[in-house]
């Protein structure tokens, strides 16, 4: 154990609530049950036509789950987000008074693009259609954040970060910053994204989708699988959480943010930006690589990304020195929501001492020198774990979570 205890309790940011809507259904328990059983939920995509595309599968929410989440006038993304946030706030025991001054930051990439696509597709075929303001408003990611703030009467700093696949990880990092620097005591951070035609078509056009369920870290991997969902974390200063007797699920030990400045869609071969993000998270948490037992990898399943992430992990931790898995192999890549969904998975792994596996990893890539926990969950004793998110544009975010009893 290194010097992480030098960090005063007063400076700590703790996680006091979690909420999830995932392809497994509503709730963080349902989510964890699916992950910890290694249940790959990827299947045929039914939300919109997929004829003529290379990949036609995804991690899609069931229609019954979606119907149960909200009212028809809300966008699919808003429904997901409100349900996840309600669970998070409830589990944290937060009341209206705390929410009045709380920050809220919800990352996303597509926002309510699905409904805007419905409008645009109809407009293309019938140009005289009158625009539907609701569809257009919901298109922008800020609309979901505004809806959440309105619904829960959240009055503090509000943001909608868009960093492609690292959007919601960045939301967690930046809200943690606001708490650490004393701007707010409490914040909701997370992300939401739904399956959209745009995203599905785009990654198909880039030939980055695997026709089969994705196989991160496998020798024969052929790309990723898309998913959807929402996850929200309640972050709080340690003092505030103690004062109100809040349940502490984990500490946010350190967060790193960096840019590759290299290529719009590809990481550099040496993964230098990802290395900097991980090292910054460690440095801010007063930790050494030896403190980290498990990394929930970005692990998309594309040839380039997995290789680059392995290079980065080897540079930071040394080959084979940390356990790694990709939960995207189980639920797909939920784009802007992925970082928050994986942060929740990482925290639940810390709580339960069970590491979620990488599905479909029948033949590990020998160029990836890590135990990637194939197929079945792995019991482990762990204090600290890292969650990585890397997005288009070269946006890297690493988050480190700590079991709350460790540094207390």
């Amino acid at each position, binding site marked *: 154990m290194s010097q992480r205890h030098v960090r005063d309790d007063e400076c700590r940011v703790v996680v006091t609530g979690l909420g999830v809507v995932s392809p497994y259904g509503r709730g963080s328990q349902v989510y964890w049950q699916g992950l910890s059983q290694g249940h790959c939920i990827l299947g045929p995509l039914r939300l919109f036509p997929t004829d*003529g595309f290379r990949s036609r599968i995804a991690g899609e929410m069931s229609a019954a789950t979606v119907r149960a989440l909200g009212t028809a006038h809300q966008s699919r993304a808003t429904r997901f987000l409100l349900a996840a946030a309600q669970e998070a706030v409830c589990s944290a025991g937060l009341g209206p008074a705390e929410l009045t001054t709380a920050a*809220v930051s919800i990352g996303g*990439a597509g*926002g309510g693009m699905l409904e805007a696509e419905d409008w*645009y*597709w109809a407009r*293309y075929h019938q140009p005289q259609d009158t625009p539907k303001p609701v569809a*257009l408003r*919901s298109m*922008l990611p*800020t*609309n979901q954040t*505004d*809806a959440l*703030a*309105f619904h*829960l009467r*959240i*009055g*503090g*700093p*509000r*943001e*909608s*970060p*868009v*960093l*492609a696949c690292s959007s919601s990880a960045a939301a967690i990092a*930046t809200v943690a*910053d*606001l708490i*650490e*620097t*004393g*701007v707010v005591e409490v914040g909701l951070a997370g992300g939401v994204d739904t399956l959209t*035609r*745009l995203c599905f*078509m*785009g*990654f*198909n*056009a*880039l030939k980055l989708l695997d026709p089969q369920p994705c196989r991160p870290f496998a020798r024969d991997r052929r790309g990723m699988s898309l998913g959807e969902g929402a996850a929200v974390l309640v972050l709080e200063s340690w003092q505030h959480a103690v004062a109100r007797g809040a349940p502490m699920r984990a500490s946010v030990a350190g967060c*790193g*943010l*960096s*840019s*590759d*400045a*290299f*290529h*719009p869609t590809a990481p550099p071969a040496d993964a230098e*930006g990802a290395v900097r993000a991980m*090292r*910054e998270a460690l440095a*801010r948490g007063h930790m050494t690589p030896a403190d980290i037992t498990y990394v929930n990898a970005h692990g998309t399943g594309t040839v380039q990304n997995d290789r680059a992430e392995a290079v980065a992990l080897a540079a930071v931790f040394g080959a084979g020195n940390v356990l790694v898995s990709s939960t995207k192999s189980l639920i797909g890549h939920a784009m802007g929501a992925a970082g928050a969904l994986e942060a929740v998975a990482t925290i639940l792994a810390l709580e339960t001492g069970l590491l979620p596996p990488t599905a479909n990893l029948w033949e590990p890539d020998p160029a990836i020198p890590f135990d990637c926990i194939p197929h079945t969950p792995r019991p482990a004793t762990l204090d600290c774990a890292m969650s990585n998110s890397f997005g*288009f*544009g*070269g*946006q890297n975010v690493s988050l480190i979570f700590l079991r709350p009893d460790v540094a207390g």
Partner: protein
Amino acid sequence: MWLGDPMMTRPASRAVITGIGCVSPFGVGGYDLVAEVLKANVTAIQPLAGFPTAGLASCLGAEVPAACLPLTEEARRWSRLSQMTVLACRQAVAEAGLCSSAALGQVGLVVGSQFGDLRSTEAFSLGFLRKGPLGLSPLLFPSTVMNAMAGMTSIALGLKGPMLTLNQSGVAGELAVARAMALLRAGRAPAVIACGVDELFPLLYETLVQLRVPSPRGSGEEACRPFDRRHNGPILGEGATAVVLELPEHARARGAPTLAEVRSACWGGIPTRPGRFPILRDRQYPVLDQALTDAAVRPDDVGMAYLSSCGDPQHDAIELACMAATFGPNGPLLTSVTHLTGEYGGLGTFRVAAAAATVRQGISPRLDYLCQPIRTDVRFATQPVTQPPAVALVHGLARGGVHTAILVGRL
């Protein structure tokens, strides 16, 4: 990796502005261009030339001329919106004297945008609608994600610090500045570029006109007249303005030019139904109060206020009510830039640049169209100011309820 200044014992709450870059209907430039635009007080609003508006109820806008955008080999790979962003940021770092790759490697970037690159999104979608899966362009897809402008800028300039894109209606530029300040405060970078950007394009313009967002709503002449009884909606504009914000000690250590100081930047949210303006009740302006407290500035010290109101009657009324309640009848001179530049979500960084010119040289835009103000218990900037105010406020209020207050002071 920059992990803060070990000599700093408390979080930085102030920053200096060391460079400005602006791509606008008035041309491309830095601080001097912004100062000239304010001084001349001549509008860029005119009938749109970039695309047809026949059959629409509106035809005016403030467009960035095609000649302003680069024709280099490098720029051909970027979307129009990315070109504007890169150009503005490049100008800003040049003015700030941040030239070496080592210096730029530590710099962070926050881009604020209301609509992002919808032009690329539409072009990408049309490929499919016209030709099916084979019509999709893999080159266009990355630009459809709203962080593409930031990604392209970081690549073009070699920025390796934290990079965020914030989506926000109305006050995306102000929010970019506030978040950049928060990154400095958290010790994530010694300097951060805040850039607000948005563009006009046919589908968006046509749709907003059909939704009766811009002027003229109802009867009356098509015009941008914030705070005047004849106001009947905004005129849409476009552009990108980048502001380099830097920790004072970092700027001092490298001998950087300093234009003004951001003394505080606060933001919050008034819970409001999405798409609507908030209903403000008496003295419910904690963001404004906090900004004054953080900056250790009394309301009387604020000599000029740049408001986000752009001629939307409801927006104008709410923001003026906020000013009247906070500052009273002898409060700051209230002004706007939208009658010059048109309105777009990322305009807030231009307002911050303008505020820097106001406190530095006493230059400010004049609301010379204002003959029937909607309130008489506040003061409007209808004449040139006689001397530079010590502090200028950049105030923002958006649909959905996001509220921002940035105080810019003279050095």
